[in-house]
């Protein structure tokens, strides 16, 4: 018994000294990036490449505050508890000046709560949940990407232009799906009070029973369908729906459906004629900033960018701009740096709002079609996020008082 415990003890001590060895070198400005690199590999991979591309550009141009910018990437296994632990490690041990990252909203919320408690600055780059900047918003958290509400409102605007009266919704049975349906219903009813929602379908996330869902929607005979499913669920839903003729003669609105991460796997079976939000990287005109980003990305990596790549790229741009504007890297300066910050990005100028810390990054809205064996968006339009946010009074009511 004695041997055992002593052996364990020495082992533990050795492990401690080993990992404590990596002292920090103070010649770069470090940013902690936490993501689900394994769990959401299809999305997080392009995101990371986008970050690295932007880092290279920022550092070639001389870095920020005269120092190179460096990102420390960490995998949280998709667990909020892990993410909180890693966030602490990054801030207290690795010497990072602020945090960014996460795709899953729950992990974004966990880090945002930690950020407020410990006084860390957190830029929620990809999570979409509205509550990150509203109900659970706090002084230390900012968000880059167009939220669920904003993107749903864009689709609702399109839906209000048609004469469709009855709608069916299908969304994964978890927070994002519910928010997306609630936001769409609210925005559409405001624009067109006489619409009726005839059925709401809630398949379990990534466990959709597509045949049954299609039959259930068909049974309700809606004029139009609002889709929030994505990933493998979307593929199954589209295939069953097409096979059974669900989409014939119906207008379909798809949240995020046009993002290459979700559209590409469908290949030539991508749905046609859906109105979607997404990222038409293949369709930018020469000379624009969008095209410049896409070209640089393809030259660097030899593969197409996803929406994740764009968000990663803009994350670095936003952080670099905020640090430069702040002139220092302590939390208070960074907050001042982010509030009211304007950043030039591939999609144009975006603005970090002072009232709720939401950036005005918008989304591309267009119609899907199949071209050369892959699904693409056509007749698309970039809609500025600033036009799809509630009024300042409403936002003030949503955010908790300080």
């Amino acid at each position: 018994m004695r041997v055992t415990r002593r052996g364990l003890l020495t082992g533990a001590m050795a492990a401690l000294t080993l990992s404590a060895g990596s002292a920090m070198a103070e010649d770069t400005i470090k940013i902690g990036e936490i993501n689900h690199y394994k769990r959401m590999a299809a999305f997080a991979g392009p995101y990371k490449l986008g970050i690295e591309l932007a880092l290279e550009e920022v550092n070639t141009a001389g870095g920020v505050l005269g120092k190179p910018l460096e990102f420390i990437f960490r995998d949280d296994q998709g667990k909020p508890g892990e993410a909180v632990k890693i966030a602490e490690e990054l801030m207290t041990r690795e010497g990072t000046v602020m945090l960014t990252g996460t795709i899953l909203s729950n992990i974004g919320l966990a880090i945002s709560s930690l950020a407020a408690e410990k006084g860390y600055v957190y830029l929620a780059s990809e999570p979409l949940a509205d509550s990150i900047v509203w109900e659970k918003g706090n002084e230390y958290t900012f968000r880059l990407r167009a939220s669920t509400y904003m993107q749903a409102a864009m689709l609702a605007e399109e839906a209000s232009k048609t004469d469709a009266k009855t709608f069916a919704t299908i969304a994964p049975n978890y927070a994002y799906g519910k928010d997306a349906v609630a936001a769409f219903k609210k925005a559409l009813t405001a624009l067109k009070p006489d619409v009726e929602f005839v059925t709401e379908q809630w398949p379990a996330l990534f466990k959709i029973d597509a045949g049954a869902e299609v039959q259930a929607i068909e049974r309700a005979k809606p004029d139009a369908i609002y889709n929030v499913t994505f990933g493998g669920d979307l593929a199954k839903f589209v295939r069953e729906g097409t096979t059974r003729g669900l989409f014939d003669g119906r207008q379909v609105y798809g949240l995020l459906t046009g993002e290459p991460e979700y559209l590409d796997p469908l290949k030539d079976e991508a749905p046609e004629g859906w109105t979607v939000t997404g990222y038409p990287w293949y369709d930018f005109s020469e000379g624009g900033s969008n095209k410049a980003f896409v070209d640089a990305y393809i030259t660097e990596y030899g593969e197409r960018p996803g929406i994740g790549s764009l968000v990663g790229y803009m994350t670095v741009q936003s952080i670099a701009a905020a640090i430069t504007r702040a002139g220092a890297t302590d939390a208070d300066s960074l907050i001042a740096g982010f509030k009211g910050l304007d950043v030039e990005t591939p999609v144009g100028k975006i603005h970090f709002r002072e009232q709720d810390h939401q950036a005005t990054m918008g989304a591309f809205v267009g119609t899907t079609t199949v071209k050369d064996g892959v699904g693409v968006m056509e007749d698309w339009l970039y809609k500025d996020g600033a036009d799809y946010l509630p009024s300042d009074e409403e936002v003030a009511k949503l955010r908790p008082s300080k």
Partner: protein
Amino acid sequence: MGLFIAQLLTGLANAAALFLVASGLSLIFGVTRIVNFAHGSFYMLGAFIGYSLMQVLPGAVGFWSSILLAGLAVGFIGVIVELLVLRPVYKAPELFQLVATFGVILVIQDLALMIWGAEDVLGPRAPGLKGVIRIMDEPVPKFDLALIAITPFVLFALWYLISKTRVGVLVRAATQDREMVGALGVNQSWLFTGVFFLGAALAGLGGAIQLPKGGADLLMDFNILASIFVVVVIGGMGSLPGAYIAAVLISVLNVFGVAYIPQSTLVLMFVVMAVVLTVRPYGLLGREEVAGEHGQVGEPEQPIKPAGRSARILVLVFLIALACLPFVAEPFFTILATDVIVFCLFAASLHFILGLGGLVSFGHAAYFGGGAYVAALLVNYADAPMELAFLMAPIGAGLLAAIIGWLCLRLSGVYFAMLTLALAQLVWSLVFQWDEFTGGDDGLVDIWPPDYLSDTTVYFYFTMVVGIGGIILLRHMAHTPFGYALRASRDSVRQAEATGIHTKRIQWLAFSVAGALAGLAGALFVFSKGSVFPVELEIAKSFDGLIVVFLGGVKTLSGGVVGAAALTLVQDYITRFEYWRLALGLLIIVVVIIAPKGIVGSFRALFENRLGSAGDKPTGGTQ
């Protein structure tokens, strides 16, 4: 009427893949008694391999032969897994193999990512079966009809194999009494390998045949796991017709659930399972477990004794060293140590019922998460002070455990384990679905301790006192009459009853106590992280607990704690690398093979061997 029939057909078609995969799991369990967690991974491999083959082989012939070849290929992968990973550990304590299969899951996840990449693939459609047939004016996909037709043939072929051939006779004999089969001269190990081949091949077939209805992605291994366990349990472990009936039942009910109660998609399956097991404890067509199969296999356990003087001093020294941590190490290490202690308490509480009580709970996360949620809900809605939340968390979790324990304890062995899993899933889906109250997937945030505890160092000491106090309490209970009665109930119910022990009541009490202490760990967790989400109630969390208890050593008192500490520290280090799942999986497999008694058990055996050879004479002197 037309719609009703169309819905029925959809359900039947959905049952096909589910039945194939579940029948493989059922066969493997029936013969080898291995609960194969990696079965979902075989299913995923079948889908990916089938997809790759379909890219190469053209036409209808290519399509169907791809499916068969995918099945064969996965069967051979199953054989490799059996030979390399499982064969060395058949002699280990019952259920220890599930840890090895968990390692296999991790390895396969990263290998699949390396080979097929991160993007989901959409399966090709079946040539010649792309359209629909109108039945009473309702569209029914032709491929659905093909699936409905194929499944009974597979069932019949399996039935023929099992009932009419010599191999089948041996398999059935092994299901009933494998020692006897071995004694009659049948080479058991090849029988096991053969069954593993068949089981894995069925999973691979299931994965490949569902391609036209979906595709392949890296999450499908875990996504199907819960459903196939449910199917196997409802049907009765080891029964193939049972698995078929259960697959059809679940799939058809699900189709009607989707149509008439769309919110039911998360819970329906588990409600059905809980109902079936309450009415028929061994599943629809299952038989009562042969007594002794799930009791104590392998060498008998040594009697436990309180730690000796030197061990106590060492633990004390270790605790003092731990208490000095904030002074000597960087702040992050106190955070890491807090996490380790919380997980150790959770593992110790599971070990209490698993090791001492012999009650294998697959749903222990329900009490950990339950405690965390009780605390978080009190803070969120009642603005309760942390002290009150800390008091209520173990009470709430204990009550939950008492209710679930009362329902489950009428069963034993794997059925008990499965019912705990089903009820834990019910709790999970309740929290997940009821978002007005629990925040659903977005959880409850901003649950922080009051100012005097908010410093990480202070909270670390608080965790040390509460967490290690809980662990010592559990250890102390093992040495009380209650602990003795609990072990007696585990080892022999009849003898224990004969000596006047009310075994069920003892087990029920132990289950509730373990739940309460898991709830305490949950409370420590929520105030250290500031938030709680349904993932803390998930199956994966329960599995984490099981794995560390087995890795540490289920037959040792400190196994749970040592396993939890070891795994948390290793995981913290290893997740910094790109292919950490591969590395962790291999590490788990290696530990399982070289230390089949768990870390503590193997160290003890090593130590006793040395002592035995060196101390022959002194022991001889006492005779």
